[in-house]
């Protein structure tokens, strides 16, 4: 290192005193930081990525105040540390405080999140701590305060932690907008750094963080590799293992030895309901686990979750059943094994979960893959191969999210108000809004001031007032409501669950509870509960002794297969067929493959398999491109549309990650002769737009958009919904916008999100091109095959029709007679 500055020496001495040796990437980061650069530090967890930036800030501080850095207090906010998780903030703050104390630097470390007490907030307003750890939402809440620029007067560094988690979501857009304002306030004096795990598009992640016009950003890569050992738990009797399912409970006895042989095990499930079921089943299977087994998911009371996390730290738990709620976050050192139940659907997520075990640098992360149905074993083999080839998914940044921008503009309007020209310049320089047009900007402003096109004198719209180029909200009521609802995480309305005798258990979706009758039993937080009544937005329950109870099914459990994993999956099927595979998973599956081959066929790499099967439900057509749920959804709609041009016909459509199904009440006119033509790329774009039920897809997207843009006031757990006469469903709003204001940008955004994010047109085109040069194999099995079974039992279905509405109704009437 060339400049052995005073600060550098102080930090080195401290590191040596603690027998720490900095990694090269940490020193690289300090150097770049001291040169005034911005950028991204790319390092796996467990290697001190926090220190790579935090210590850099301290070195610079000591350099600037060599004589009195141990005495200077009340310096104002220096470092803003944005983190996606509140739980992370606490641990990082603790680590920072320990370092500051040992270095004798009297800086304050503050936390700002939804949990921060009112007293702490007031104290922060009076005197900002030198370091503030904050969530994206709370940052926007700061921007919603009067005279917020004062808070950031001394700010010179912003760090965005876990940037890979934020970038693909609207929370990432909130970060972009927050940064654009801070940059505007601090002009050229702000250094911005991200910390990210490896993703496929790290360069783009840098562009998103710094804006597309940045010129001094760099990526510092820690060339450290985590050793991961993946082992599949193979069912003892593969012949009798279920063909479909998503719970994997049958495999539970084979999971127990892993738990017994490890110090602490995390058991990852894909949904909250699955975690509840696993928790119950584990206790039943091995009562000795009582007291040493815990449950952790997003619906469980925060305090209980914190207790579980502490207990994990202290090593007093043998195992925790969890969901994505423990994907991120702090190191639980005692954890030495991870069990993944069911497919993780992506390489990055799997790596992240694997990394939750063996947290010390150099330790091996052990992860066990436990299939929930037989074919999932192929995914394990595919994951293994993808990990070896480091095929890690990209996280695509969100573009032109008008809903988040509307929310942000309102945020600025409720604090000090904003000047249109100034904010327009800042917003345009973000990655998300780099292509926003002036017309769109004007539309957004008029949406806030006049509520879009109004009908003159009868209109009473009120929200933001316009004074020349200055925009401000003067209604205290609206400002209060807006502050309550800053954020982009939209959830179903949640109700608190409490015992009749008092005692809080957790929260639960209103839509689930509304289907229960008093006396019904359900499971939450690992307890069997009897539903008694709903009072004051709280579900009152008592303990249930019932043997049967309903497990709530939560939304959001369906994650599509990534394209990387899909490609690997096809390769593995190919290998399995060749009979030459050395993967234990594929060898174990041989009996199943043989049955599939006997009943129908196993497609080779250059083949597309189509199965035509008749059952009492009607005429089924199964197609297996192995491209993942999202591509299949669109492809199914396209095929259905093209078939419906041949004759008037109605389909119900289902899909999974391997293939899709068209089901009709009449024979499906697909033959060996016309098959190729039905999968052509000719007229793809036009036919796609007519075929896909874009309206329905957009309607689904619109719910979140309407909430984020402030059209629906969600209400809060435990609080009454005020203003009942202002409640309306997103679907109804969607309808009136479509009928009365089709040019509305939020509506346009819903269609964009449906088309561009969900449809993955490029991937679909690639698939069709692959099919064009493949051989299409059509079979007519006498009964359901191992391939088709998991698709057929899927209950979520779409519809595609070319029959007239009147004709469909008449047909429905006759069949019901």
């Amino acid at each position, binding site marked *: 290192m060339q400049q052995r500055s005073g600060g550098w020496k102080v930090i080195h001495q401290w590191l040596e005193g603690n027998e720490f040796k900095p990694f090269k990437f940490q020193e690289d980061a300090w150097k770049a930081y001291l040169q005034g650069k911005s950028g991204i530090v790319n390092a796996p967890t467990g290697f001190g990525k926090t220190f790579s930036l935090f210590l850099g800030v301290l070195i610079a501080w000591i350099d600037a105040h060599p004589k009195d850095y141990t005495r200077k207090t009340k310096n104002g906010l220096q470092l803003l540390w944005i983190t996606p998780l509140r739980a992370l903030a606490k641990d990082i703050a603790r680590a920072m405080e320990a370092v500051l104390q040992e270095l004798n630097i009297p800086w304050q470390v503050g936390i700002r999140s939804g949990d921060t007490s009112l007293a702490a907030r007031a104290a922060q307003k009076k005197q900002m701590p030198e370091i503030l750890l904050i969530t994206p939402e709370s940052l926007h809440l700061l921007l919603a305060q009067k005279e917020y620029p004062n808070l950031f007067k001394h700010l010179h560094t912003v760090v965005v932690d876990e940037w890979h988690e934020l970038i693909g979501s609207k929370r990432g857009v909130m970060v972009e907008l927050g940064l654009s304002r801070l940059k505007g306030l601090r002009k050229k004096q702000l250094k911005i750094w991200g910390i990210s795990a490896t993703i496929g598009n790290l360069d783009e992640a840098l562009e998103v963080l710094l804006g597309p016009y940045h010129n001094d950003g760099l990526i510092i890569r820690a060339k450290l590799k985590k050793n991961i050992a993946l082992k599949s738990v193979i069912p003892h009797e593969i012949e009798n293992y279920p063909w479909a399912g998503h719970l994997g409970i049958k495999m539970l006895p084979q999971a127990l030895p892993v738990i017994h042989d490890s110090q602490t095990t995390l058991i990852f499930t894909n949904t909250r309901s699955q975690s509840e079921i696993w928790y119950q089943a584990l206790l039943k299977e091995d009562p000795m686990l009582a007291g040493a087994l815990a449950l952790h998911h997003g619906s469980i009371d925060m305090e209980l979750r914190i207790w579980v996390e502490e207990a994990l730290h202290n090593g007093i738990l043998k195992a925790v059943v969890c969901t994505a709620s423990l994907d991120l976050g702090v190191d639980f050192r005692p954890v030495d094994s991870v069990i993944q139940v069911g497919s993780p659907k992506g390489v990055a997520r799997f790596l992240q979960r694997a990394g939750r075990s063996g947290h010390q640098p150099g330790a091996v992360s052990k992860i066990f893959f436990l299939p929930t149905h037989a074919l999932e074993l192929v995914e394990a083999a595919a994951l293994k191969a993808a990990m070896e080839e480091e095929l890690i998914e990209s996280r695509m940044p969100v573009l032109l999210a008008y809903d988040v921008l509307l929310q942000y503009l309102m945020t600025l309007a409720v604090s000090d108000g904003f000047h249109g020209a100034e904010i327009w310049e800042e917003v345009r320089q973000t990655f998300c809004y780099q292509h926003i047009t002036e017309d769109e900007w004007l539309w957004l402003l008029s*949406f*806030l001031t006049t*509520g*879009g*096109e*109004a*009908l003159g*004198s*009868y*209109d*009473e*719209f*009120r*929200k933001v007032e316009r004074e020349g180029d200055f925009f401000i909200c003067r*209604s205290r009521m*609206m400002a209060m409501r807006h502050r309550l609802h800053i954020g982009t995480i939209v959830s179903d309305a949640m109700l608190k669950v409490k015992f009749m005798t008092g005692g809080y258990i957790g929260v639960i979706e209103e839509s689930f509870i509304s289907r229960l009758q008093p006396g019904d039993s359900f499971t939450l937080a690992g307890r069997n509960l009897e539903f008694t009544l709903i009072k004051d937005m709280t579900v009152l329950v008592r303990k249930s002794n019932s043997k049967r109870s309903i497990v709530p099914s939560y939304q959001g459990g369906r994650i599509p297969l990534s394209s990387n994993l899909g490609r690997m999956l096809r390769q593995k099927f190919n290998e399995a067929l060749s009979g030459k595979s050395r993967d234990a998973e594929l060898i174990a599956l041989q009996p199943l493959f043989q049955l599939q081959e006997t009943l129908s066929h196993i497609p080779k790499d250059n083949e597309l398999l189509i199965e035509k099967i008749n059952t009492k*439900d*009607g*005429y089924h057509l199964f197609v297996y491109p192995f491209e993942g749920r999202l591509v299949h959804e669109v492809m199914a709609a396209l095929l259905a549309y093209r078939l419906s041009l041949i004759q008037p016909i*109605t*389909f*119900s459509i289902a899909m999974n990650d391997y293939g899709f199904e068209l*089901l*009709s*009440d009449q024979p499906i006119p697909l033959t060996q002769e016309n098959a190729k033509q039905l999968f052509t790329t000719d007229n793809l774009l036009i036919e796609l737009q007519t075929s896909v039920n874009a309206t329905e897809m957009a309607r689904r997207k619109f719910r979140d958009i309407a909430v984020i843009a*402030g*059209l*629906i*006031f969600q209400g809060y757990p435990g609080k009454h919904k005020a*203003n009942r*006469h*202002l409640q*309306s*469903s997103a*679907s*109804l*709003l969607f*309808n*009136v*916008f479509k*009928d*009365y*204001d089709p040019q*509305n940008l939020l509506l346009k955004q819903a269609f964009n999100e449906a088309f561009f994010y969900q449809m993955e047109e490029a991937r679909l085109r690639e698939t069709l091109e692959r099919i064009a040069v493949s051989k299409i194999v059509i079979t007519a099995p006498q009964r359901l095959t191992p391939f088709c079974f998991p698709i057929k039992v899927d209950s979520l*279905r779409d*519809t595609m029709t070319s029959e007239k*509405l*009147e004709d*469909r*109704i*008449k*047909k*429905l*009437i006759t*069949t*019901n007679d």
Partner: protein
Amino acid sequence: MDSVVGEIFHFQQQHWHLLPQRAIFWEEEKTLIVSDMHLGKATHFRKAGIAVPAGIEQEDLFRLQQLITRYLPQRIIIVGDMFHSTENNDVQYFRVWRQQFANISINLVKGNHDIMPDEVYEQLQIQVNNTLTISGIHFIHEPCEDHNGFQYTFSGHFHPAFVMQGTGKQRLRLPCFYFGPHCGILPAFGHFTGSATLDPAANDPVFVIAGKSIIRAQ
């Protein structure tokens, strides 16, 4: 409008024109029957800063106007929830609209949303009653389960929709007119209203609104 076709339902010795505009024309009494208009709802939203499109009630009233010019009723019965909530500018708009049809009487059967002071309705030349009975046919906002002594009853409140299912796992959900043993339910007239799924007995007549036509579903 001319391509829109209703269905004449002969029921209780009367002729009921079930109209896809979500209204009934009662031929014998020259009466137009609608329910759950929720006028002013969008404006209440806009006043609170929620920018739903302006002009929804104007469109709803235009549809009513078209029905009036086509069927020339002497009376309009609104089976509750005419205005969505407290008074706002849409009341003024309605006052102007009302003057075109000063000779037609309007009867409002009070619903749970009809909370404006009596004077307002008086000024708008609307007669308000809790229930109404004409030629033995009773009108009340909330549907009644049991026989109430009248020949037949019409109600609203529910905003009914009907779900049809068939082979191939097909499913359709449409707004409908429902005729129970004692009580019928009208679809909501207003466009900015939701709907609730009805679960009728197998023999009760149900007519669904399928775009521009009416189809008997059972």
